[in-house]
């Protein structure tokens, strides 16, 4: 009768949790938070992005607590997040002021401000490096630090977006800045048709695998097919909150690393063509997620019959917590409901036999 609705549930749970601890114990070596945070940085970025909480320390802690499961780590951060009071809202961040560490365009060879390849796995050969089995981590770190110290820092220069030029030319529509307060899906029920701010917030917190798969379906033909990455930039943006005693002033509270993408599509404009732009922005170095987000943003704006063009379909099914929560609930006992189902099936069959 396993985990049946018979007494004994409490002890079973206690033992199950004890067993998890055993699994997590693994070996004698501790997994230090500093190690997770710095050497599993992309995993940390992914967890922060899906959780909608920017904290490398807590993301690392959450990953340690759950044997490295992304969905469990996201779960822990989200639950923690709902206990926090919202004391401030930051001022609007203009990503033109980003301190860029990587910037590429698949649309133009030469872009104003230049392309910066930065760090990418794109051009590595994916060969397992067996030397890493016995690496001198301290020596590697010191060597990297030494190299960094020898460099002369370049002056930070801010770059306009690639799309700015196309907007000037009239190839992409120009809109007035919309600075009304965004619809916050963490505090309100998302309603349809959804406002764009709600779409973007939902997409940036979405499960990476889910939106990547959706974007892939667009590229394969279930959508407008092949967009061009006009610009992908990764870098640091500064966050400020308003200073209560003086509206003109603001207080700097820190910087966060984000990846931002603009993807271009062809679009109809009466009897001629124009370009339309999809937008993606996510926490950390999450490039494919940012691109997928830009692709889907554009599909939702375009509308149509494909799944990626329906806001309700896309936005209701991509939340890591919601999808995994509901899927995992199938493991709960359903004795009463199944009994009722059985009753209905038996009744119809009895009728048939009469």
């Amino acid at each position, binding site marked *: 009768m396993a985990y049946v609705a018979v007494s004994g549930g409490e002890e079973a749970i206690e033992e199950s949790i004890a067993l998890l601890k055993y699994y997590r114990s693994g070996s004698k070596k501790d997994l230090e938070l500093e190690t997770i945070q710095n050497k599993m940085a992309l995993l940390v970025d992914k967890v922060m992005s899906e959780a909608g909480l920017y904290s490398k320390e807590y993301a690392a802690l959450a990953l340690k607590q759950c044997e490295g499961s992304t969905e469990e780590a996201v*779960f822990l951060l989200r639950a923690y997040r709902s*206990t926090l009071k919202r004391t401030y809202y930051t001022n609007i961040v203009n990503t033109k002021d980003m301190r860029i560490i990587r910037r590429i365009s698949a649309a133009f060879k030469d872009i104003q401000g230049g392309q910066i390849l930065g760090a990418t796995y794109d051009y590595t050969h994916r060969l397992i490096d067996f030397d890493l089995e016995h690496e001198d981590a301290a020596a590697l770190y010191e060597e990297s630090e030494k190299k960094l110290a020898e460099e002369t820092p370049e002056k930070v220069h801010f770059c306009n977006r690639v799309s700015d030029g196309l907007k000037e030319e009239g190839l992409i529509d120009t809109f007035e800045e919309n600075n009304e307060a965004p619809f916050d899906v963490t505090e309100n029920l998302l309603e*349809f048709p959804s406002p764009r701010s709600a779409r973007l917030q939902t997409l940036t917190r979405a499960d990476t695998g889910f939106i990547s798969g959706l974007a892939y379906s667009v590229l394969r033909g279930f959508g407008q097919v092949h967009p061009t990455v006009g610009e992908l930039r990764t870098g640091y943006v500064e966050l400020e909150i308003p200073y209560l005693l003086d509206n003109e002033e603001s207080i700097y509270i820190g910087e966060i690393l984000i990846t931002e993408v603009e993807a271009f599509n062809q679009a109809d404009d009466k009897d001629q063509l124009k370009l339309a732009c999809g937008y993606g922005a996510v926490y950390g170095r999450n490039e494919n997620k940012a691109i997928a987000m830009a692709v889907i943003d554009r599909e939702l704006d375009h509308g149509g019959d494909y799944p990626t063009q329906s806001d309700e379909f896309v936005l209701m099914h991509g939340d890591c917590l*919601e999808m995994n929560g*509901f899927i995992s*609930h199938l493991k*709960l*006992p359903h004795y009463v409901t199944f009994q009722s189902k059985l009753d*209905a099936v038996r009744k119809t069959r009895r*009728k048939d036999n009469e």
Partner: protein
Amino acid sequence: MNKNYNYAFLDEGSKREIRRSILKAVAIPGYQVPFGSRELPIGRGWGTGGIQITLSLIGPEDTLKVIDQGSDDSVNAVNIKKFVRLCTDVPTTTDTREASIIQTRHRVPEIPMKNDQILVLQVPIPEPLRIVEPREEVTKKMHAEKDYAPIWLQLYESLIKYKKITIGTEYPCMVENRYIMNPSPIPKFDNPKLNDSQCLYLFGAGREKKIYAIPPHTKVTSLAFDDVPFEKESFKGKKCRLCGNENTYLDEMFDSDTGEKHYQCSDTSYCKEVRMKCH
């Protein structure tokens, strides 16, 4: 009680917001009130709507009972109780009469509840029209316009095809002749208990971010045709092997040793009470 977290886990602002949604739900019986569902340390789909209602209402004077599939000892019920205890210190009970708040999944207790009690039901899919229309945008309009033809048609089609209405649990009800409501996955057996009851029923769907209510003495009718009356699950000729009751909802069980099939009350605390009285 874990002092690292606020009383009843959620911050006071969130609890107040949820209580406001509950008040609105009570004012419009059967109407699904949207609310800003918070994320909890328990999985979405595991009763987070019900838990948020419970957390927002609970105070030091309350006594809590949690049941899952009628059972106080089921893993999920135990887990929810453990969580509420962790952040409130509220006493828990298995006695239906003793509790001021009862949170439940898939059952309404066999003992009729009183006017100082609240039954909080966990709801996976609050929308009764979801079976005929997948889009929220459309079902919302259907409710507004009281356009319930598609669901009636579905019941009718089921009759034509199987000579029976084949819905098991989640059998739709009409509330005060206005809103069609999903009673949550309680069996049809429990549907009549919703009508003209003494207690307040609150329904919480955490993942779908909806709260709805049936206040005391509300008219709740299970959908049926004049010539084909509503029919509950039948356990004719069967009784509980422990307490001998013939009028309760029964779980079907197999004895793995003998291969025999037998029946047992799904409401474990009621079953226990009947047995105590007999002895």
